[in-house]
């Protein structure tokens, strides 16, 4: 299914992020080595302060690392300026947030079209792609609804449709079920699973809930800025097991939860 080696979406080596708070320094990432291959569905777990959010921000090119290297789809993106990062976000990355972050008083369709506006895609094509992606997540009948006319689950699906419109190489979902009840959370996770398995979309999910992380095929746990575990969870009919390089300071690869 995959061509291992040049299908790396994310490759980070010794990635460090230090926040300078004036009189003190906070080490958020203390040297991360991690590869994410095309088609993976990865959950990043860890308690607050573990560095998982910082890792997502750097992976999502919202921020630059203090040191270390980051290759995104084979390109070194460790030291890009704001505009260059914005351009990659616009063309190759999709974001899903805990608070959905849909524009208020704006129709679902226009919300889904928004990233394509910044990518400079013509209006008719924007509309066509937006409707296509909304169909994919089952919210095409809500096209004319404003966010306040939709349930939380519907809003999050619209947000997922928005993250898909530029055919991103990687979708970053930051606590996407944090504001949803259990049943709706399951629905949203099923959508992610389907997108991953049927569309072969690479997804990185950040969560602190084990139940949610359990939907992913691979779980990476952060603690104090280190990767402390990197676990593959095999499912029937899932792609074959992949060995992943583990961080220098992390314990060896563990295999758990065979199902």
């Amino acid at each position: 299914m995959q061509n291992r080696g040049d299908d790396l979406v994310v490759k980070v080596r010794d990635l460090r992020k230090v926040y300078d708070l004036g009189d003190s320094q906070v080490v958020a990432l203390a040297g991360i080595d991690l590869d994410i291959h095309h088609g993976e569905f990865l959950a990043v777990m860890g308690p607050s302060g573990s560095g998982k959010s910082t890792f997502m921000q750097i992976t999502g090119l919202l921020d630059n690392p203090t040191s270390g290297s980051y290759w995104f789809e084979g390109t070194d993106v460790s030291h890009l300026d704001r505009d260059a990062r914005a351009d990659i976000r616009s063309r190759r990355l999709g974001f899903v947030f805990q608070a959905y972050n849909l524009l208020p008083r704006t129709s679902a369709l226009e919300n889904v079209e928004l990233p394509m506006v910044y990518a400079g895609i013509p209006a008719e094509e924007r509309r066509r792609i937006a409707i296509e992606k909304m169909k994919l997540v089952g919210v095409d009948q809500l096209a004319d609804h404003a966010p306040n006319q939709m349930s939380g689950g519907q809003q999050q699906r619209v947000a997922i449709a928005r993250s898909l419109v530029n055919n991103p190489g990687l979708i970053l979902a930051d606590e996407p079920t944090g504001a949803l009840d259990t049943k709706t959370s399951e629905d949203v996770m099923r959508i992610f699973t389907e997108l991953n398995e049927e569309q072969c979309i690479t997804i990185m999910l950040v969560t602190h809930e084990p139940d949610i992380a359990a939907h992913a095929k691979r779980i990476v746990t952060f603690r104090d800025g280190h990767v402390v575990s990197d676990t593959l969870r095999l499912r029937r009919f899932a792609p074959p097991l992949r060995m992943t390089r583990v961080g220098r300071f992390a314990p060896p690869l563990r295999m758990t939860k065979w199902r």
Partner: protein
Amino acid sequence: MSDFKGILRLALQALVRNKARSLLTMLGIVIGVAAVIVTVAIGSGARQSVQNSINALGSNMIVVQPGSLNSGGARGGFGSASTLTPDDGMALAHLPGVAAVTPTVTVRAQVVANDNNWQTQINGVAPTYTQIRSWPMASGTMFGQSDIASSAKVAVLGQTVVGQLFPGGQNPIGQTILIRNVPFTVIGTLAPLGQSGIGQDQDDTVLIPYSSAMQRLTGLSTVNSIMVSALTADQVSAVQSEVTSILEQRHHIPAGQTDDFQVRNLQSIAAAASSTGAVMEFLLAGVAAVSLIVGGIGIMNIMMVSVTERTREIGLRMSVGARAATILNQFLTESVVLSSIGGVIGIVFGFIGTMLVAALAKWPTQIPFGWVIASVLFSGLVGVFFGYYPAKKASNLNPIEALRFE
């Protein structure tokens, strides 16, 4: 993304999403522009009406007065030399650019009619006088050329004199009045003209043929002045130099010698009044422009609030790929669109306000189109100037912090 249409669309969407706030923000600019237009329209209308009344006085008019008399080194004032004659006037009548000429002989005299008497200014003039002064008749007729030739004892009364001599409202036409005991028949009355620019009652006068005045009242062969009216205001200075050279010839003044007459026109007065009006107009516009600036500060205020309120939205826009410059342009476009639409609405209100002032207060108004264009440009500029800082602030937001903003 750099296409202007896309940014304009985003800005319009954002404005439409917040209709109430957009309208309130615009209000400052609307009022500012409307105020500029109404005040300038009133100022400019006032200037125009002052200009009109000066024109009525005769901005095309040239007045020739006798010069000073130099007797043994003692120089008299203007008019001390009695050198102007009706023939001088005749000689000027056929110059190119001259519309009409009249000599004037001015005498203050006691006028008696029945039981009433009144001292007034008697003006001996030619029939063209009313034409030069743009002075319509109220009743009767002006005397004619034949009355000049025959030195007829006929008079045309100003309204003040009519009121003093015929207080009962009786018709003065056909009545006999005594001017220095010389009987004159009233053949017409002049329309009221009101006060002159220097507060003189222009209606307090009696017009008689200049020949009658010379023969029957002054007994002199000279006149007090000659009024010449040019065809257009542009020709005034040309006519003025023509008049000067003709009179120099007639009076045998060698080149380089002091003339025994003085030629003046009213254009300098008109220019002074006009520039006073312009100063007033600028003053009014300045006051109104302050309200435009206040409106601009209102825009900045609302845009600042808007940036804070929409921090998460800005974070989202950045995370889905908006460059900082795109965010800057969007917010800048929002404020320019707000202020420009406000400017256009302000023009509409300015026109309505001007019409109301013209209709209710009966003030003369004149909408100056230069100011209309200037105020629209200015309001757009206000949008750029006062929108830049909030827009810059928005574009400098860190997307991570913006997304976390509560």
